């Protein structure tokens, strides 16, 4: 579904990604872990071109999206993204947050979008917040809404950029729960996270990044039980 070929990204003199190659199949749940500064967030943000790769190619459904001629807005409409800091639109109600993109991009009519939003809100248990503004919500609620907002676009893949890192500990669970449910529904997911429990439980593959490269990749069981590279062994010994 997504193919990454020889991806490089530099910020000034700082090489953040160095020759990353990867392939994501439909239905996979890829969990990306690694120390801070390893380039995992940048890797994720390159997938929907929030960061423009310095060089290399990214293919989505067979289309080269790194091509300057590709319609990046159309591509992004099919890729949901959830941010560490939620980034709900502060000037809009929850309902408007969810229906804005589907209606403005003419994917749905006003009524249809609202109905769809209510259905999704029911799924995450926040239907009574439809007319509230983001500032009145807790972090966990905001993040669940952010997930719903992405889902309202019926994306083919969901990207999660440390979705629980900015949450109070007691709110992490409710967000992970929604993500777990989403995974069970068959969504293709790429998740950058520090939640090793989530990686073990939900991931179909776990990817370890360090120094701008994918160092190791394996099924969750093997990944945690038999880490091969010394760098990963050291990392796991610190976080587990």
């Amino acid at each position, binding site marked *: 579904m997504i193919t990454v070929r020889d991806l490089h990204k530099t910020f000034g003199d700082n090489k953040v990604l160095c020759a990353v190659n990867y392939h994501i199949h439909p239905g996979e749940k890829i969990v990306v872990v690694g120390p801070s500064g390893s380039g995992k967030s940048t890797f994720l943000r390159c997938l*929907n071109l929030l960061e423009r790769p310095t060089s290399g190619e990214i293919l989505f459904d067979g289309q080269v999206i790194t091509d300057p001629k590709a319609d990046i*807005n159309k591509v992004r409409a099919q890729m949901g993204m959830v*941010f560490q*800091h*939620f*980034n709900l*639109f*502060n000037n809009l109600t929850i309902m408007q947050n969810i229906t804005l*993109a589907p209606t403005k991009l003419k994917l749905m009519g006003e009524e249809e979008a609202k109905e769809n939003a209510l259905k999704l809100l029911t799924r995450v248990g926040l239907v009574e917040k439809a007319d509230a503004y983001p500032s*009145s919500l807790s972090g966990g609620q905001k993040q669940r809404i952010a997930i719903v907002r992405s889902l309202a676009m019926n994306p083919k893949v969901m990207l999660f950029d440390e979705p629980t890192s900015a949450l109070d500990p007691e709110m992490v669970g409710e967000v992970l729960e929604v993500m777990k449910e989403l995974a069970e529904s068959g969504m293709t997911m790429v998740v950058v996270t520090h939640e090793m429990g989530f990686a073990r439980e939900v991931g179909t593959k776990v990817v370890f990044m360090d120094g701008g490269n994918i160092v190791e990749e394996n099924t969750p069981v093997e990944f945690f039980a038999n880490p091969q590279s010394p760098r990963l062994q050291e990392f796991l010994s610190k976080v587990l």
Partner: protein
Amino acid sequence: MEWLNSVWMKIEAAFITKDRWMLYLKGLGITMEVAIFAALIGIVIGTVAAFMKLSVTRKGKPSILAKIANIYIDVIRGTPSVLQLLIMWFVVMKNCHNGILVASLTFGINSGAYVAEIVRAGILAVDKGQTEAGRSLGLNQFQTMVYIVIPQAFKNVLPPLCNEFIVLIKETAIVGYVGMSDLTRVANQMTSTIYEAFTPLIGAAVIYFIIIKLLTILLGLLERRLRKSDNR
């Protein structure tokens, strides 16, 4: 009592005799007319200049439009507004006989430079994550600006914008330089009519003060209303 009587006589001479208060009122009219037109022109020019200044090339460098906007802002901020008025009046628009128009344009162009910086700062103050979220949903740059960034920037921009308007009201006092009878000039001329400076000058100052105080109160109310919608 005698003291009070003499004060009253001065006030009478400065404001009441021969319906002189009408002159102040007309002066205030000119002051406000110029200030309001200038503010409108300034907001239009300033907003355009702000977006020009924010525009970038595909490689992320400032565009040619940004450079033009920068030159405009630099020139306006780098020269005294009195001089700008004199140049407009005696050089650029010397064949135009509509004083209000020339003055409004001058102050509008002048104010635009400051408004541009206000609007630009207001837009930049909106968290980058808001733009990223909009773009990640497939909205284009324009849609993201219109539906998400600008409504939020508006709240940031309103207080400094009103401040700019207040500055503008007082700055128009320099139209006296080119012979327009605004509030300040009316008061100034009155001093030589009645051979007494204190009363007309203080009188004019009080009028400016009241107008601006009223504006400040209005602005406070507006701001409080805008902030309320934050926590509904």
